[in-house]
């Protein structure tokens, strides 16, 4: 296995938070329709507070640091924070919409030694992208920024989210990424809002489009392997952990809350009240998350997909039970392999249940017309 994989194994054995995702603000110059955040500033951390946390993370052994938000460049001190992180020798990755990146910012990011920049682009067509970001002109500015960053020799990835608004454009977006000379990832995941509002899940694409995506070798690699029926699970699989959240990674909000992951909003401690190592070692919420093994999952432990499913414990948590199923991932496993999950079987389903929005349309079209 790769060296990075071995380091992750080692970090797991020693309980080291190797990767941390730090959101420095929830303020944003865009209002993406699928975003899970509340963009008002409720008292984000100061420069000093963030630097203090970076010191603590370096002490704790964190190596991979991702800065994100909101839009990071809305913070005036952002480049100062990056410089501080680089002095502490973090490997820094930045997620940004790049709308505010011009030559100066690109040069700075290069000079400071940012290892990777991830930028969301939702289409090759400006009108489709801008309809999602709700910021006119954003596509033009974002793609121009990508060129500046590439000119500086920086490593850039375009991250696209597959949703109802850009369903027909994902190959176009992929081609755009290719033309710009950047890596491309496509993710059909839309998460509920952090405040518990599930209505944005209506943006999730119908499951029936997923087989095409999953059978695309340019996205998944070897299709025969990717879509194969899962192996009969063994003891090693049942003893496995759901994912790195809480084990070798965690998430910090602009308000100093620690969660296992940005997609797993379980408040586990606040850095304005406790030291990071204190939270990391002693939080009862993190201890609870860490105790979970595949065999402890109420439904999934008996599912053939348990070793290969993309099951996100955070999505399961938001669905009601961190040990329960994540219906969105049941759907993905089904459309990837054609085989229903245990969760589906228990509900007597041979196909995933249609989303609530779709059911409404089928029952009462008249009600939907007004929406």
């Amino acid at each position, binding site marked *: 296995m790769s*060296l*990075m994989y*071995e*380091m992750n194994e*080692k*970090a797991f*054995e*020693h309980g*080291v938070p*190797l990767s941390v995702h730090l959101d420095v603000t929830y303020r944003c110059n865009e209002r993406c329709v699928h975003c899970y955040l509340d963009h008002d500033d409720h008292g984000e951390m100061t420069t000093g507070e963030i630097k203090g946390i970076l010191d603590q993370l*370096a*002490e*704790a*052994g*964190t*190596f991979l640091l991702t800065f994100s938000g909101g839009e990071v460049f809305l913070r005036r001190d952002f480049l100062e924070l990056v410089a501080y992180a*680089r*002095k*502490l*020798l*973090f*490997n*820094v990755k930045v997620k940004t919409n790049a709308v505010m990146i011009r030559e100066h910012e690109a040069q700075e990011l290069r000079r400071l*030694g*940012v*290892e*990777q920049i991830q930028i969301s682009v939702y289409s090759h067509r400006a009108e489709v992208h801008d309809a999602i970001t709700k910021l006119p002109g954003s596509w033009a500015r974002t793609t121009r920024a990508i060129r500046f960053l590439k000119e500086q*020799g920086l*490593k850039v990835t375009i991250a696209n989210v597959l949703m109802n608004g850009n369903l027909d454009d994902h190959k176009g977006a992929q081609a755009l990424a290719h033309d710009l000379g950047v890596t491309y990832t496509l993710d059909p995941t839309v998460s509920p809002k952090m405040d518990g509002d599930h209505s944005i899940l209506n943006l999730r694409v119908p499951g029936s489009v997923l087989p095409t995506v999953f059978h695309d070798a340019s996205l998944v690699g070897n299709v025969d392997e990717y879509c194969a029926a899962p192996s009969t699970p063994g003891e090693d699989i049942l003893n496995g952990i759901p994912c790195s959240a809480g084990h070798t990674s965690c998430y910090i909000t602009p308000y100093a809350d620690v969660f296992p992951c940005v997609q797993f909003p379980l408040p586990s401690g606040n850095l304005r009240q406790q030291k990071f190592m204190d939270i990391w070692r002693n939080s009862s919420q993190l201890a609870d998350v860490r105790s979970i093994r595949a065999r402890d999952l109420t439904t999934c432990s008996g599912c053939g997909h348990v070793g290969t499913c993309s099951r996100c414990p955070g999505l399961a948590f938001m669905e009601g039970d961190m040990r329960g199923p994540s219906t969105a991932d049941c759907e993905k496993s089904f459309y990837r392999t054609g085989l229903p999950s245990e969760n589906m079987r228990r509900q007597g389903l041979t196909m995933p249940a249609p989303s609530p929005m779709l059911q409404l349309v089928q029952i009462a079209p008249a009600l939907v017309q007004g929406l």
Partner: protein
Amino acid sequence: MNNLYIARSSAIASRVLAGETMVMSVTDSTFFTLNEVATAIWQAADGVTPLTDIVTRSVCPEFEITPQEALTDAEEFVRELATHGILQVSEQPIPNQDAAIAGAA
């Protein structure tokens, strides 16, 4: 035999994990791990201490290796890291560009 001087590049990220040092080049994302001997050399690579001194002071006493063996191994090691751009190697002392915190946490 001329003295060699070594300095950590600033275009890297690093962190110690259970006795090994992880080093990643931020320019091309190549990733290395340094064992305990290599870590000792890495942490002492300040640009002004000759490699022979680093070896006799930090390597030989800590690890049971003869000075000659240690120096040969060290020279090979530093040239290897230099080819990947994460260590500067020179026959002259290397001035301090950007004070990287020694060894990191």
